[in-house]
Structures are given as structure tokens and as C-alpha cells.
């Protein structure tokens, strides 16, 4: 049961990331429209501001006007400035708001997609890498929506609008702007092509680094005890170094593209200055009328502004590349991009209805075949088995033979071929809530979350009352150690059960089962970490609970097998009836024994 490094699912080309990104715009709502529209308005006002400033200087320098004579103009400029500042603030806030909304909704969708997969999907992936996609790569979309999109619209419209405004003042300068402005984005697109591949490599390096950290931190005690501190630190430094090189590779291209743009912008400004200067001096005469200082200054003031939106676009061009790389990374980690049509309905899954039907259910396996996740090895080969309602069954077999696999398939936590019928219904046809209320499953390595012991038991049923939890804890022999703790069931435990011994942690997880009311109970090694005396008590509690329910237990323990109705052994991909081990304890008569 081994995995391949996660590659994009073969045979399926990643969809156009750019188009997918643009489609996410609608998650931003009207705020995004505001963020795009306001800067355009501000651009119009800018023309007026430059015109006023040029006129003011003209009157002062050429006509020798005094301060009181130009006060009105000064005030006009001040009002224009204040208005533009206000527009700028509003636009920026709208952009940020839209970007946050988009990221939030996207994260919810990605996390939902993750939970909707079967656990065998997540277990083949790195938790660090997946969390990096949801947290960090999604963050990389921020610049695209908050800055790149508005900048792109501005760069398309404003330079041409400015050039048109300058045309009446001076035809030559206006034409110069009209011709040079569109050339620049064209050139930049060419540079941007190269940037994309490099950005993708960088996003990949970041995800890999996160995966490395998540993995190594988990086992840091082991690494320390094996004296691996230096060599593992070296690994981390090398991975960081490779991230640095890749990032710098991306940045070099991004910086080059903005340098090219600056060059053209500078050429444009210098060209205007030279043309205006030469016209003043009479070396050039391309206009009928003489050029006033006011007109000349206006052209000079507007020249940097014509190129400003383009420079801004160049500065944020990197955001677009980063966003596309992030989307590609999402597609790679998630196998495919989340469906656009699927809107985010957080918590769309209904809370499982409290199972009222405690009726034992039958289980039938027909031609059940299960492969390892890479589909290279066969674990279960054409298994057919019928379990009567209320029967208690032990599954034996060497470790790694497929006991857990069989239980996971029956709990719909793993892909399989063939049929599994629960209570006569096909497993895949059962509604999720229905399935979960009828079938209880406890894996071999159940997860304990950060929180109190009671919180962890309550995972079995969200609304469980404190007395219910106490009863469940007693049944799973949790109270035996919990009552020695100062805070009892309210004792906080670390994630993975830190603070508890292996056996204690397992009993906490087991207690969850007692909060449910299932017709079928699937348990994987419920007593693996327990000593004989505790095991005996746990089995007693489990059997008492399982009366009138169907029970399947994968176990190595002869003590359990002896007390169940039937024993099967898994070997060579088959499930075979096995001799029933003797139990020295009192004989019992129970219903449901076929």
C-alpha cells in the first residue's frame, strides 16, 4: 500500500487557470465593480488637476500674476486633490473587501471539497501541502483581485483617454501617446509568458516546503533521539534555499518586465520634454500656433501619468502570474479545480438525524474487490459474505492483510469494486446522514483533537449531554483514569491524545461509539493497546452495547474472537470462515446467532 508522488491526474489537462480565475470575480460582488470604476473617475479628475496646475504656473511665470490672483486656481486644485484622495481610499477599500470575500468563499469551497473526498484520498496526500494550498496559495489570489484586475482596466482605458485629452492641446504629443501606449502591454505579455512557468515552479517549491515542515515537526522527538537535528536542519535549509532560488527566478523576470516598461515610459517622457523644449526654442515647428507654457507644462505633467497605469499594471503583473500558479497548484493538489457551478454552502451537510432505528442491519458483500490506492496491488479479491442482522463477527488475519481495508470499505471510507449491501440497500445509494446514523465506525488510529476529554467524546454526538458523556466514558473505562485527573473529563488533552497513554487515548475514542445508536458497528482493533484486565472490561461493555446490533470487529485478540458469534480469517485476499476459538468464560445464550 504505497503511494506515488501526487501528480496531476493523468489524461486530464488542467483547465485554463486564467479563465477559472476570472470566473471567481462574481464571488467578489459589486465591491469589485466599485474598485474598478472609481480609479477611472479619479483619472478624469487628474486631467483637470494637471490642467489647473499648468495654467497656474503659466499665469505666475509668464504673466507675472500675484498670489491673490491665482487663489481660486489653488483652491480648485486643492478640491480636486481631496476628491481624488477620497476616491482612492474608497476604491482601495472596495478592492480589499472584494478580494477578502473571494478568498473566504474559495477557502470554504476547497475545504468542503477536501472533506467531501473519501479519507483514502486525503491519506495519500501531505497535510502540510494541502493546508498550504488552502491557506497560502489562496492568499496569493489577493493581489489578483485587489490590485491586478483594477490595474488592468485602468491600463486599458486611462492611457488612451489621457492621450485623447492631450490631442486638442498638442496633436504631436497626443499622437505619440496614442501610438506608444498600446505597444507596451503587447511587449509585456511576451515577457509575462516566461514568468508563468517560473512562478509555477516557485509555488510548487513553497507547497513542498510546507509539506516538509508538517511532516518533520510531527516526528521531531524521534529525529532528536536519533541525533538527526543537524542533518534535518540541513534538509530544511536546502529546501528553503531552493525556494529562494525559484522565487528569485520569478522576480528577475517580473523586474525585467517592469524595467522594460520604465524604459519606454522614460523614453516617452523624455521625448515629450525634448519636443516641447525644441518647439519653444523654434528648432521644431510642427504646429500652426505657438505653444504656450501652459500647454507645454500640461503635456509634461501628463506624460508620466499616461504611463503610470501601465507601470502599475507591470508592478501587479506578478500578482497575476502568482495567482495563476496558485490555481495550478490547487488543481494539482486537488486533482481538479473545484467545480464552478458548486457554490459554497457552508455546512450544507445536514446534521445526521438522531438514529431512532436501532434495528440491527444485515450486511452483504458481493464480489467485493479492493485495490491499494495506487491500484497496483489487490487487497481483497472477489469477496462474498453475508452477515445476518444482529450477528457479532470477528475478522482475524495477519497485520496488513486487509482487515482494516474491509471495514473501511463497509463504512464507505474507501473505494471498492463490487457490491456492498447494508440492510439490503446498496452502500452507494444510502444518503450520507442515513448511512452515518445507522453505521458506527471506529478506526485503528482514531484522531483525538485539541480540547477536553469530554469534547473528544462528544464527537460521537454533538448534542450529547454531560451525563450521557459520563456514561459513555464509564462504558469505555475512560473514567478509570479520568477520575484520577484533577479536572476529570474536563481535562484538556493535546491533539493526537498528548497527555494520555496510548491505551487511554484509544479508550477516549472508543467512548464515542457509546453515544451513538447504530444498527451496525464496525470496530478496528478496539483493544489493541489494552492490558488483559482492561480489555476484558471493554469487551463486556461493547458486547452489552452491541446486543440487538450487528457487530464486526477486526482484531488480533483471541479474547474478543472467542466471545463473538463467528470468526472469519482474511488470507490471500479472501474472507474465509475460521474455527471459533474457545472462551474459558461462562457460556451465554444470545439471539441472532445463526
Amino acid at each position: 500500500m504505497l503511494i506515488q508522488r501526487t501528480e496531476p491526474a493523468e489524461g486530464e489537462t488542467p483547465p485554463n487557470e486564467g479563465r477559472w480565475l476570472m470566473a471567481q470575480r462574481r464571488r467578489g460582488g459589486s465591491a469589485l465593480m466599485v474598485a474598478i470604476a472609481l480609479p477611472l473617475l479619479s483619472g478624469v479628475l487628474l486631467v483637470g488637476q494637471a490642467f489647473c496646475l499648468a495654467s497656474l504656473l503659466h499665469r505666475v511665470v509668464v504673466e507675472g500674476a500675484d498670489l491673490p490672483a491665482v487663489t481660486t486656481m489653488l483652491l480648485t486644485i486643492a478640491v480636486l486633490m481631496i476628491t481624488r484622495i477620497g476616491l482612492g481610499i474608497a476604491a482601495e477599500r472596495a478592492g480589499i473587501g472584494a478580494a477578502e470575500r473571494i478568498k473566504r468563499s474559495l477557502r470554504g469551497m476547497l475545504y468542503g471539497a477536501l472533506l467531501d473526498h473519501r479519507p483514502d484520498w486525503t491519506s495519500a496526500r501531505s497535510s502540510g501541502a494541502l493546508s498550504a494550498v488552502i491557506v497560502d496559495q489562496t492568499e496569493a489570489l489577493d493581489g489578483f483581485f485587489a490590485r491586478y484586475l483594477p490595474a488592468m482596466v485602468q491600463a486599458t482605458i486611462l492611457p488612451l483617454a489621457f492621450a485623447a485629452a492631450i490631442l486638442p492641446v498638442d496633436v504631436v504629443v497626443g499622437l505619440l501617446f496614442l501610438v506608444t501606449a498600446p505597444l507596451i502591454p503587447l511587449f509585456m505579455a511576451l515577457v509575462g509568458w516566461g514568468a508563468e512557468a517560473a512562478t509555477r515552479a516557485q509555488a510548487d517549491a513553497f507547497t513542498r516546503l510546507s509539506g516538509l515542515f508538517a511532516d518533520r515537526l510531527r516526528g521531531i522527538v524521534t529525529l532528536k533521539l536519533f541525533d538527526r537535528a543537524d542533518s534535518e536542519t540541513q534538509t530544511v535549509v536546502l529546501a528553503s534555499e531552493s525556494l529562494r532560488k525559484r522565487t528569485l527566478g520569478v522576480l528577475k523576470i517580473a523586474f525585467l518586465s517592469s524595467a522594460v516598461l520604465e524604459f519606454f515610459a522614460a523614453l516617452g517622457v523624455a521625448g515629450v520634454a525634448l519636443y516641447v523644449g525644441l518647439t519653444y526654442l523654434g528648432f521644431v515647428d510642427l504646429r500652426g500656433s505657438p505653444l504656450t507654457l501652459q500647454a507645454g507644462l500640461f503635456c509634461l505633467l501628463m506624460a508620466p501619468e499616461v504611463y503610470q497605469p501601465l507601470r502599475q499594471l507591470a508592478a501587479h503583473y506578478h500578482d497575476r502570474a502568482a495567482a495563476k500558479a496558485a490555481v495550478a497548484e490547487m488543481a494539482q493538489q486537488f486533482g481538479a479545480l473545484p467545480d464552478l457551478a458548486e457554490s459554497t454552502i457552508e455546512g450544507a451537510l445536514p446534521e445526521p438525524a438522531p438514529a431512532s432505528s436501532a434495528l440491527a442491519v444485515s450486511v452483504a458483500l458481493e464480489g467485493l474487490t479492493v485495490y491499494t490506492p495506487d491500484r497496483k496491488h489487490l487487497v481483497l479479491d472477489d469477496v462474498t459474505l453475508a452477515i445476518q442482522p444482529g450477528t457479532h463477527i470477528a475478522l482475524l488475519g495477519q497485520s496488513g492483510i486487509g482487515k482494516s481495508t474491509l471495514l473501511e470499505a463497509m463504512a464507505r471510507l474507501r473505494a471498492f469494486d463490487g457490491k456492498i449491501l447494508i440492510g439490503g440497500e446498496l452502500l452507494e445509494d444510502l444518503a450520507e446522514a442515513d448511512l452515518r446514523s445507522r453505521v458506527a465506525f471506529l478506526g485503528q488510529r482514531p484522531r483525538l483533537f485539541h480540547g477536553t476529554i469530554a469534547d473528544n467524546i462528544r464527537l460521537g454526538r454533538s448534542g450529547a449531554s454531560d451525563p450521557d458523556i459520563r456514561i459513555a466514558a464509564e462504558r469505555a473505562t475512560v473514567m478509570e483514569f479520568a477520575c484520577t485527573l484533577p479536572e476529570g473529563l474536563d481535562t484538556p488533552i493535546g491533539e493526537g491524545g498528548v497527555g494520555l497513554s496510548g491505551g487511554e487515548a484509544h479508550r477516549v475514542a472508543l467512548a464515542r461509539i457509546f453515544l451513538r445508536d447504530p444498527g451496525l458497528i464496525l470496530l478496528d482493533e478496539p483493544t489493541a493497546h489494552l492490558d488483559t484486565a482492561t480489555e476484558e472490561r471493554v469487551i463486556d461493555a461493547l458486547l452489552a452495547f452491541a446486543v440487538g446490533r450487528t457487530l464486526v470487529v477486526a482484531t488480533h485478540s483471541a479474547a474478543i474472537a472467542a466471545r463473538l458469534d463467528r470468526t472469519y480469517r482474511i488470507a490471500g485476499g479472501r474472507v474465509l470462515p475460521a474455527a471459533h476459538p474457545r472462551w474459558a468464560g461462562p457460556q451465554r445464550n444470545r439471539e441472532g446467532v445463526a
Partner: protein
Amino acid sequence: MTALWYFRPLFRRHAGRMAWTLLLTMLTLAAGIALLGVSGWFLTAAALSTAAVSFNLFGPSSLIRGLSLVRILSRYGEKLVGHDTTLRLLADLRGWLFASLFPRVPYAARDLRHGDLVSRLTADVDSLDTVFLVAIGPVVTALALGSAMAVLLFSLIPGAGLIYGLALLAAILIVPTVLVGVTRQRGREAVSASAETRMAVIDGIDGHSDLIAFGQTAAARAAFASATDRLALARRQVGSAGAWAAGAVQGLAGVSLLGVTAFGIGALRDGVLSGPVLVGLLLGVIASFEATAAIVRSIAKLGASMAAAERLKAIAIGRPPIADPVRPVPLPDGSTVTFSNVTFGHDSARPVLRGLDLTVPAGGRVAILGPSGSGKSTLLALLLRLQDPQGGSVSVAHTDIRAVAQRDLHRRVALLSQDTPVFLGTIRENLLIGRAEATDADLWHALDAARLADFVRGTAEGLDALVGETGRTLSAGQARRLCLARTLLSEAPVLAFDEPTAGLDRETEAEFLSDLARATRGRTILLSTHAGLPEGAVDRAYRLRDGKLEPADGFGPLLRPEDRAPQQRSAPAD
């Protein structure tokens, strides 16, 4: 800020590159100011000039072209060197932080969650990039060039110089300071919400089966949504404050532009300066505010950087719970293990071990039996100094392990703990952690001893087969055996096994325990188990009951340290 200050030694290492970045930033800004100033002056002078012949055209025009080129090149250089410096700094920081975690292991894992730690080492480190590249550099540059510009203005038009100087000072110092004050709390909130989001994702992955099986995915989604809501809100507030600050800086630029104009008109009337110079100065003022806009953008992120620095400092400082002695004594040869009168409890009021004695002679094989939670794992953890006892002492080769370097101790004693993970990587990489220089033959030998060789041989890739994070793609038993093989591979003369056969079926378990003596010949073995022990697996077995060891049925009498004297009982606990 104090947290940021803590990291200055790392910054110092890159002082040369930083100085270059600063120099190039200044050059860029200076060229920009000069470019616009000269253009304005040139244009106005040309417009006013009546005799074209007498006007020096080539000087200014070549100056304009030269300045443009300088500005483009220096900006490219500034960005490249600046980012390179920052990225080197971050790489250093990651390595340094990761290395500084080891002495603190095992940290109080109950307080520090896995996802949170991952967040600190990735996202938090990343957010420190703002500090130098976009905050310190531009502030210093703007201050230097702004002062020069203010002095120049002041010498020509005192009133204009004063207004410009005050406005610039406000834009560079006051607005950012206020902004930091406003965004600090929000920035901290954003950093913690981001970590919470990551923890929620990792929890969802690690507990995926449990969440689905118990129908709790809706609750998990709700917890995740509340984390992302917090994150979005905090970020929006930080961004909003940044937008207001950017507006304020623009306003200050406008004030100085209008102020310089108003005072300039007076100066022009008085004949203090000429029209062209006034226009040149005005355009220079506009250009000099270019740097301040960038400052505000990055200062808005400084709150988050400071919070990140605090979180990083928190994991890097503090006395490690288990420290090496100041002058460690060399650990003499030998593999005798002695526990004398050891008392220990996670909560010292309720000790798990109470005056426990145990001697395992070199090459001896001892099993510790007892119910789960009785303190077996704790006993073994004390032997590795993952904890120190509150009373009594643990010795290896007749030397108190608190007197020797941990590294020496860990070379002498290897542990297979219950929670040791399989690492993301190949089977070979996982095994080599046990002994880096082991040959393939050694690896196969260890796999054989752990009864995993057949499985590995059965895979197409053999030793190079990849195993997932925490070995989730292996069965529990296979993962356990891989860790076992890793421990067997270690050359430590003392091996401690905590439930080595958990997850193995009875047959394999019995075979393994019988094999153990052969696989570990000559080494000292401490083994905690609740399994039945086959004949000959160990020399002695003890049962851990009420914090003390007693001989288990059918095994020899309890060995006591022969030198157990009263004064030893009062061995220092700390």
C-alpha cells in the same frame, strides 16, 4: 518591535547586501527627483528664452536621458538585491528556528499545536519579509533624500522649506507610527486567524475518517468558516487602515505642493528665484513623495510582521525544559541501566512512579508489564531524558544521565516510542534516520528482523517505495514494523521498546518477541508490553504497580541497585 529586535543578529549577517539595497534605493529616488526637476526647469527656461542660439540645449537634454537610464537600472538593481537579501534572510531564519526547536523537544505539545507550529515556520517567517525590504529601506531613503530636499528648499524659500519638511516628516514618521498603532492588534488577529485556519485544515485531514464516520463534517466546516471569517475581517481592517493612511500621505503631498507653490509665487515676485527654478523645484517636490506611498503600503503589514515575530520568538526563546549540563562529563563505555528511587509525575502531586528501582545489567533483557496508563512509557521516556525525574536518578553506564550531553546519551540509548511516526519519503529514507551510514544490506537485515522484508520486496520500488505522511498508506502494523526496523538499525547498545508489538497479530507478535533476542544480541533491552511473553524472550519481567516494580510471575527476583543509600534519595529534583 522588541520581538523584531530579537532577530537582529540574523539581519546583521546580511548587512552588506542591505547596504547595497539602501544605496540603490537612494540612487533611484534621487534620479527620479532630479529627472522631473531638470525637465521642468529646462522646459520653462526654453519657453521663456527668446534667443534660441544662446540656449544650451545639449547639456539638459543629455542630463534628462542620463537620469532616466540611471533610474531604470538602479531600480532594477535595487529590487533584485533587496529581494535576494530578504529571501536569504528568510531561508536563514527557517533553518535557525527549526534548529532551535530541537533543544526544546519535547515542548509542551499540549499548548503548541502541530498546525500552529507549521504556520509559524512557513507563513509567519514569510511575513517578516516586509520588515526590511519594504519598511526600513524606504523609510531611511525617504528620510535622507527628503531632508536634503527640505534643506535645499529652505535655503531658497524658508517658508516653503518649512512646510515641505513638516509634511514630509509627517508622511514618513507620524502617519506610519499611527498606522502601526492602529493595525497592530488587527495584524496579530490576522496572523492568529491564519494559523487557526491552517490548524482546522490539518485537523480535518488528520481526523478525516473520524469526522466522516461520526457525521461531524458540518461542524468541522463551521469551525473552519469561523476561522476564515475572522481572517477576512482582520485583513480587511488592516487593508482599510492602510488605505486611509495612503490617503493621508497623498494629502500631505498635496499640502506641500500647494504650500511650495504659494510661497514660491512670493519668492518669484521678490526676485529670489527665477521661473524655471520654481517649476523645477515644484516637480521635484512631486517626485520626492513617490517613496512615501510605498512606505505606507508596507507599514500596514508591519503589524502582522510584529505579531509573527512575537510568535517566532516565543518558540525560540525560553530555557529548554531539559538542558545539557554546563560541563558535561563523557559517558564511559557500558550499557548498564539503573533507576534509583525514581519519583515522577506529570503532575508532581500525583506521581506515576514512586521510588522506583531497577537495574538492568549490560546485555540484560528486561520486560516491564502493567496496565495501560501505569507509567511504562514514562519510565522509558525518563531513560532518554525526555523528562527529568522529580526524585531519584537514572544512570547509564553508572553515570547519572543528567551529567552527560544529551547527544551522547541518545547515541547510547535508542527508543521506539508509541507515537513515533513514519516520515514522508521512501522506505530507505525512513530507515536511514536510524543510522545515516547504513548500507543496503544493513537495511534489509533490519527489515528482516522487523518482519517487513517480504512486504518491501513485494513492492515494485523496494527500498525506494514512497510512504505517505505518518505512514497512512501503510497498515498500522506495517508502519509500526518500519519504525521498529529503524530502531533496530541504530547502533545504540541500549534499546528501549515501548509496546513494540502493538498492531501486530498474535502470531507475528510471538515470532517477533522470540526473534528479539537474536536481533539484538549483546544489547541491553528494556521492553514495555502488555503482550504475553514467549519463553526466552527476556531474562526478567517486572510488573509496574502503584509506581513501583515487582517481579512478574514466573520470573526472577527484583534486582535492586546495590548501592542504594539513604543520601541518594535526596538527589536534587531539578
